[in-house]
């Protein structure tokens, strides 16, 4: 590769990642499982039920946008004519248009959801997710809240919020047992909690190596095949832990041996939110300029906002709030409180971090040793767009060169003029004195 400075090697975990992702897709089977819509975030408590399967619509919507534009268009139209606004998140319209059409992208009948658990998040689009199934047919449904307040942590204020969130999750689990008659395995929940914290630890290590090593052992396009495993796309818990350990080990080895994700890395840039899933090829296009993308707080979701710059300037794990490891977990309520952690706001989640600390993106850019940022301004999908322009101002204040481009939403290709976007990238690179390293 022209202008290559570092050695590169193909990633070994790549095949395993594809295999796990495919197994998630195939394992969703309405015949053998009771399908639900919603998000259980990180601790995979659904695995403690014999045959409950909770499917998040984000990965499904993103996959449809990536694989079949014509079907995504038909699906969005089916939502629009029934009243869903054009400013509704693309994942939602892609995924739930299937419900109105009655068939999926591959032609098979749509697997209707039989219950809805909440998708608590500061993003309103997530908070109201699940409304598609509830308004379509009267299915059992529950609610929860992303508790929020500004400023430093206030334990007194968090006490009722922790009770509220525990009540909501407990009620979900108890009602699922009562309505669908499946026994919840409390012992297994303890194991799942340990897996959850293990995965977070491995993910944090990967983020750490990507941040502290030049050249970065992993670029964002490799991280995208990993970051949802065990998070948005849940597969067998044990396999998930083994997989994350394998990825952590490989990234650690690559970092120690200076194996670069992009051989001619000379410009590190970050994003604020997911890219257009139908247009991932712009990462390779930027790599022609030796510009490698380190991703966004979103892509480091698992590790998330868990790195910080210490007083002595070094980058290390962010100290977070946990109940002590040996806390006795007699009742189901104890286990739920334990995995929800004493932090009512869950600041580890990137969106909450952004919400409370708009300056979070400056810190992230510093941690990732980034030189620039490409920020998408999405016309719909409120959570992906909120405070985006303000973040651009903040990054410019801390000296980064920022490029903004417009589009509809990561899962909706309307309003993104690809030709114009590539021209913008060319102009941006040239303005930074970088020209294509034609190989």
């Amino acid at each position, binding site marked *: 590769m022209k202008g290559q400075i570092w050695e590169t090697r193909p990633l070994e975990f790549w095949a395993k990642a594809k295999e796990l992702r495919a197994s998630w897709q195939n394992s969703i089977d309405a015949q053998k499982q009771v399908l639900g819509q919603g998000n259980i975030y990180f601790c995979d408590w659904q695995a403690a039920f014999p045959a409950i399967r909770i499917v998040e619509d984000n990965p499904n919507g993103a996959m449809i946008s990536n694989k079949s534009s014509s079907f995504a*268009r038909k699906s969005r*139209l*089916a939502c629009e004519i029934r009243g869903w606004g054009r400013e509704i998140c693309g994942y939602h319209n892609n995924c739930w248009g299937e419900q109105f*059409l009655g068939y999926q992208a591959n032609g098979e009948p749509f697997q209707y959801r039989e219950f809805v658990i909440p998708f608590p998040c500061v993003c309103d689009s997530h908070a109201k997710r699940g409304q598609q199934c509830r308004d379509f047919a009267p299915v059992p449904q529950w609610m929860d809240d992303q508790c929020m307040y500004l400023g430093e942590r206030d334990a007194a204020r968090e006490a009722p919020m922790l009770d509220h969130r525990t009540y909501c999750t407990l009620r979900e689990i108890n009602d699922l047992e009562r309505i669908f008659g499946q026994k919840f395995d409390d012992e297994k929940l303890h194991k799942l909690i340990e897996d959850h914290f293990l995965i977070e630890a491995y993910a944090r290590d990967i983020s750490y190596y990507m941040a502290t090593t030049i050249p970065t052992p992993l670029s964002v396009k490799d991280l995208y095949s990993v970051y949802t495993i065990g998070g948005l796309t849940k597969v067998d818990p044990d396999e998930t832990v083994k997989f994350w350990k394998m990825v952590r080990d490989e990234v650690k080895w690559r970092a120690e041996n200076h194996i670069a994700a992009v051989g001619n890395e000379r410009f590190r840039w970050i994003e604020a939110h997911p890219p257009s899933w139908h247009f991932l090829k712009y990462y390779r296009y930027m790599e022609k300029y030796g510009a490698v993308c380190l991703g966004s707080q979103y892509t480091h979701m698992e590790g998330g906002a868990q790195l910080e710059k210490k007083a002595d300037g070094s980058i290390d794990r962010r100290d977070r709030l946990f109940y002590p490891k040996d806390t006795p977990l007699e009742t189901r309520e104890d286990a739920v409180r334990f995995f929800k952690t004493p932090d009512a706001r869950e600041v580890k989640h990137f969106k909450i971090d952004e919400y409370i600390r708009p300056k979070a993106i400056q810190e992230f850019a510093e941690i990732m040793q980034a030189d620039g940022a490409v920020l998408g301004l999405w016309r719909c999908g409120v959570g992906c767009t909120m405070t985006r322009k303000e973040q651009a101002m903040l990054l410019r204040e801390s000296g980064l060169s920022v490029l903004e481009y417009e589009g509809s939403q990561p899962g909706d290709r309307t309003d993104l003029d690809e*030709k*114009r976007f590539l021209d913008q990238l060319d102009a941006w690179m040239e303005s930074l004195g970088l020209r294509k390293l034609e190989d």
Partner: protein
Amino acid sequence: MSKYGIWPECVWRSPEMNWRAARRITAGIDAGTTSTQAAVLCDGALFSYASLATGVDFNRSATLAMERALEGTDMTVADIHAMGRTGWGSANVPFPAQHIDEVQCHAKGGRFLFGPEVHTVVDLGGQTCKAIRLFDWDRVRDIMMNDKCATGMGRSIERLCELLEIPITEIGPRSLEVQTDPEPVSTTCFAFANTETMGLFGRPEFRAEPLSEAEVYASHLFAVAWRILGTIGKLQPLDVGDIQVYGALGFTGGLAKNPGITRRIERELKVTALESRYDPMLAGAIGAALLAG
């Protein structure tokens, strides 16, 4: 006034009808944003009509349209018993005419053009798209209009033809010369859509060779057709299943003469729209004449 983006102006007169024998003569003027039509009816039958581009002044265009419609006949405006006016510039029509809202005119005009079996009339106007669902006895059951902005309407196709320097009459047929429709342009907002369409002519980054001219037209018109499908689909959608049209479908307005849009809508709806002997742009004026007085 550019020559590419304007539908050719036309005048027509019924050769055999003797208007003096008519008991009741009515006329209708549709002063639209993009074009103006005048139609004269004798006892409910079309006697003469004229259609021209609206230009800058509604007042002048309406007067000109009525003059052309009556040109060559010895009929004058005074002979007309009752006159109706409709359209965006209806308030500027200088004749003593009764204002009638557009939806009623296009519903009535649609039934005149396509006969009583039409149940869904879609007006593809210069700035608004109106989908009207009718019952048998021209009772309007439901209406849906494009949410707000004029994206994908006559005005934007007019500007596109001027930019690409192709007559508005040819862009539709040329766009149908493709086997399969390419990916549509990402928006129909005519400011961005036009620049994106121009961009499609350039050397593509991620494609072997550039799009052919027909493919570029197809890409734009497919996006416009898809936008109009949204308005049609909102007329009482089913709980589950693809878009369904209620009864026979009829297109009126300027874009109805653009097969690049109408054929693509028909293909998606799996129906064939009704054809009419007369120019579909006249629906508003004919409806106003039938409803006048």
